[in-house]
């Protein structure tokens, strides 16, 4: 990290902010609300073909033969490809390249891609798929991760040497056994987090064009343009400078559009083979197969505390069901342990996490990657501990609060930390003191907390270059255009860039245009994942804007023959603080500076400081800043039907400085909604044949407006010393506590502990039945 990476939390001109902190409209909002915004599937090109994919009907099988001759002969078919056409393996993590655009010799889940066809229209392409003859030799399918952990044959990935184990991480900090032996209270239990998926409203889609001069352009609904660019080059064998990747407007992602996918590679390959533009749009069913959603985790936790409730040690053993491919699984396995060590202080901690392959749709990063599941287990266990030591759920979290400017047991640096204020906020807003433990039977309040990373200093491929880059271009009319590789996936990152640059240059943010996520036009950014964009792209934007500001102010000061300190850019003008009569418009100042200096522009970048523990994997989960969240939810349990209804969720989130409180609140509300849905409604699973249990939005129940509770967003601002004006993330952290808070509210409501997700009526009724005899027996 150099000086350029830290810009301070204060307004750039010393006074109040003029753009930052205000609920400005998103730059692309009206285009979206009028149907003008163009998403990948809205693009068409002359002569465009449509492509479809043939998928495996088997959970695990060897491909004996593939015969495409009948499909190729069908009228209207222009190209058919199989694994033999794209034999180079790839994977988003360069250490685990175990995917193919189309299966080469083996299929690993029902829905795995086998062949692709480009034809004049989708109906013809679908008809051609029926004419592809594939002979399979079925293999034993692993659907239970326990079996996959114990049994290495048949190996799902025979090239790997560790049976069906995808990744194993075991780390210990301090002496956990001694700590637990000394503890006054130890709570031990098993917890299960089921599979859930992202279900963005826009299905994945790519349009590829291969021009006569050998340039490939791929418009894709990706949230990481840069990795798609690299993967296209590697798999197609085309030099990266011959490839341009563009992300059009994106209709939601949540982590589900982070991996490079088959549809991008196949559309590109088919465009190269046919010489015509090729579009591939996945159906909703295919989006479910592509998955990369939340990993199911079987978790065993032991947590010890002294009689006052102070934590002594935490011991976790986690079996992670990875599905068919690695995806981000190496990182997931680390995150399952590394991200638990706040906002509470643990003197000792151990985790032993094993990710295994199974013959199911591959899991990957979903909002709160790798840490939502352990957080659920731990926050429920913490509530059990509170009960044992006689503390209130909020009190035990206060007692163990780690504070700011500290280090975690696993060596992560904590700077700003507003978790205590988050607890205060949800306590106050929910009426906790007057209502917790005092509501009528069947109604309860539950609390939970969490922390999350604001980006990570672990780049997916090792390199010394900036993690975020930005370029500013000045127009004589008074317009500034920002070129950023950052991906706006609906969260509003393009708007944030506009606000930051406008603030620095004293301009109206509507005079700042953002061009994003186009590899030909924009400097590299590592994309929209791990909640890194506002922090990293934001710092890069301030860096670039300050350089540009310095040039313009210097030129104007030179013209006026005054010290640069007297020249200020504010309110769309450039003023002389020493002479109220002297002023220029921004456009005049740009012209003056261009005349005195040169064509105007600047670049900016951001890199994380060295972070993380001094051990293998110590940088995975190391973040320049952590966000903190507390939730209180109010739940009602119908003891007759077992149905849980959440009426209200109070969400307090420490986002550092809220650059736009309306956008921050939107992330908090959307996160809480998504977490609630995972607890009560959604379940991504396969049946005993490995067939997806319900790959549709009818069967996979994402909440409607009537299923969604009242969401109360309470923004807490602990200014972060390294964030852009003090900002941290808001997009993923606020999801975590939603799920354990519901379990804890159910305990307050009816006295049962729900440790296995999802919280179905059947599980509630079973837990109530189990509790009933002992409750009767106690005679109280």
């Amino acid at each position, binding site marked *: 990290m150099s000086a350029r990476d830290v810009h301070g939390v204060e307004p750039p001109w010393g006074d109040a902010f003029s753009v930052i902190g205000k*609920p400005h*409209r*998103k730059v*692309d*909002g*009206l*285009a*979206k*609300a*009028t*149907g*003008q*915004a*163009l*998403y990948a*599937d*809205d693009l068409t090109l002359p002569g465009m073909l449509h492509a479809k994919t043939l998928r495996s009907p088997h959970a695990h099988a060897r491909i004996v033969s593939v015969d495409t001759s009948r499909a190729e002969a069908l009228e209207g078919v222009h190209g058919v490809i199989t694994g033999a056409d794209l034999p180079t393996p790839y994977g988003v993590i360069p250490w685990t390249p175990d995917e193919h655009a189309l299966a080469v010799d083996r299929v690993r889940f029902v829905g795995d891609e086998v062949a692709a066809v480009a034809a004049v229209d989708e109906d013809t392409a679908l008809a051609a798929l029926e004419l592809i003859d594939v002979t399979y030799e079925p293999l034993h399918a692993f659907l239970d991760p326990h079996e996959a952990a114990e049994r290495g044959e048949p190996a799902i990935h025979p090239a790997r040497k560790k049976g069906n184990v995808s990744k194993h991480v075991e780390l210990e900090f301090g002496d956990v056994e001694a700590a637990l032996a000394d503890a006054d209270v130890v709570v031990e239990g098993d917890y299960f987090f089921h599979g859930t998926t*992202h*279900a*963005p*409203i*826009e*299905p994945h889609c790519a349009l590829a064009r291969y021009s006569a001069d050998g340039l490939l352009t791929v418009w894709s609904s990706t949230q990481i343009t840069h990795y798609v660019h690299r993967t296209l080059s590697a798999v197609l064998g085309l030099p990266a400078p011959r490839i341009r990747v563009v992300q059009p*407007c*994106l*209709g*939601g*992602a*949540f982590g589900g559009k982070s991996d490079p996918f088959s549809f991008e590679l196949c559309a590109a390959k088919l465009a190269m083979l046919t010489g015509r533009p090729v579009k591939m*749009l996945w*159906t*909703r069913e295919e989006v479910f197969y592509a998955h990369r959603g939340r990993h199911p985790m079987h978790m065993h936790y032991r947590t010890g505390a002294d009689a006052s409730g102070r934590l002594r040690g935490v011991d976790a053993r986690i079996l992670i069901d990875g599905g068919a491919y690695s995806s981000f699984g190496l990182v997931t396995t680390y995150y399952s342990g590394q991200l638990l060590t706040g906002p509470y202080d643990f003197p000792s901690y151990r985790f032993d996490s094993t990710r295994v392959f199974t013959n199911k749709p591959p899991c990957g990063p979903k909002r709160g990657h790798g840490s939502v599941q352990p957080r659920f287990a731990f926050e429920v266990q913490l509530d059990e501990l509170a009960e044992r030591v006689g503390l209130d759920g909020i009190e035990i979290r206060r007692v163990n609060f780690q504070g700011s400017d500290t280090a975690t047991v696993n060596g992560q640096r904590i700077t700003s930390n507003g978790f205590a204020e988050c607890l205060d906020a949800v306590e106050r807003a929910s009426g906790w003191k007057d209502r917790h433990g005092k509501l009528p039977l069947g109604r309860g309040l539950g609390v939970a907390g969490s922390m999350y990373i604001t980006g990570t200093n672990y780049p997916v491929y090792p390199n010394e270059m900036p993690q975020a880059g930005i370029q500013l271009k000045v127009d004589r009319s008074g317009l500034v255009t920002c070129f950023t590789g950052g991906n706006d*996936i*609906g*969260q*509003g990152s393009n708007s944030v860039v506009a606000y930051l640059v406008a603030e620095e240059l004293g301009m109206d943010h509507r005079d700042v245009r953002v061009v994003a996520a186009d590899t030909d036009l924009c400097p590299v950014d590592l994309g929209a994942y791990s909640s890194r964009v506002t922090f990293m792209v934001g710092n890069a934007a301030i860096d670039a804007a300050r350089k540009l500001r310095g040039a313009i102010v210097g030129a104007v000061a030179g013209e006026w023959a005054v010290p640069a300190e007297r020249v200020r850019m504010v309110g769309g003008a450039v003023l002389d603080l020493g002479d109220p009569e002297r002023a220029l418009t921004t456009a005049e100042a740009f012209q003056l500076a261009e005349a005195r200096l040169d064509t105007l522009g600047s670049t900016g970048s951001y890199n994380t400081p060295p972070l993380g523990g001094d051990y293998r994997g110590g940088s995975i989960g190391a973040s320049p800043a952590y966000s903190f969240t507390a939730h209180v939810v109010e739940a009602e349990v119908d003891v007759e039907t077992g149905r849980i209804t959440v009426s209200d969720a109070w969400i307090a989130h420490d986002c550092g400085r809220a650059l736009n409180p*309306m*956008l921050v*609140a*939107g992330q908090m*509300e*959307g996160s*809480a*909604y*998504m977490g609630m849905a995972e607890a009560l409604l959604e379940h991504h699973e396969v049946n005993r044949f490995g067939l997806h249990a319900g790959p*549709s*939005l*009818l069967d996979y129940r*994402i909440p*409607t*407006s*009537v299923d*969604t509770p009242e*969401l109360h*967003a309470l923004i807490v601002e602990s200014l972060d010393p390294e964030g852009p004006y003090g900002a941290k993330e808001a997009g993923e952290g606020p999801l975590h506590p939603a799920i354990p808070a519901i379990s804890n509210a159910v305990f307050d409501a009816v006295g049962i502990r729900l440790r296995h997700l999802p919280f179905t009526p059947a599980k509630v009724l079973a837990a109530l039945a189990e509790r009933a005899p002992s409750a009767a027996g106690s005679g109280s």
Partner: protein
Amino acid sequence: MGERSTFLLNGEEVVREGDPMARLLDVLREQRRLTGTKEGCGEGECGSCTVLLDGEVVCSCLVPIVQVDGREVRTVEGLAGDEAHAALSSLLVREGGVQCGACTPGVVVTLRALLERDPRPTRARVREALAGNLCRCTGYEGILRAVAALVGRKERP
């Protein structure tokens, strides 16, 4: 094949020949290039392809074009020109009701139909009306705030 259907699309008469079972959604997007109507699921679950058919909210992915013959279709583009749209869309953006935007055109169409029938809907009534439009980003709060703001403004003297 080759069956003819005639309908009013955003106020303009359209005569179409072709497969009578073609989905209205495909006719709008591919033949009329009205891409504001989005396809999210193709099976009537998500509501992102919502249009008005004789003023009724329908999922255009479930409507064969033959059923549209002699009727009136309004899409988000057809609604987008008037003052009511300017007020609603501006508030949706101001209140955070628009994130990724994939559901937004459908939400706009549904809300317009609601507001035409009930200019001052309660929060519960808005939730009920939106139950066929899945939004994956906002938790619906921003959309509900936008309608509340719209209604609140109308309620002021």
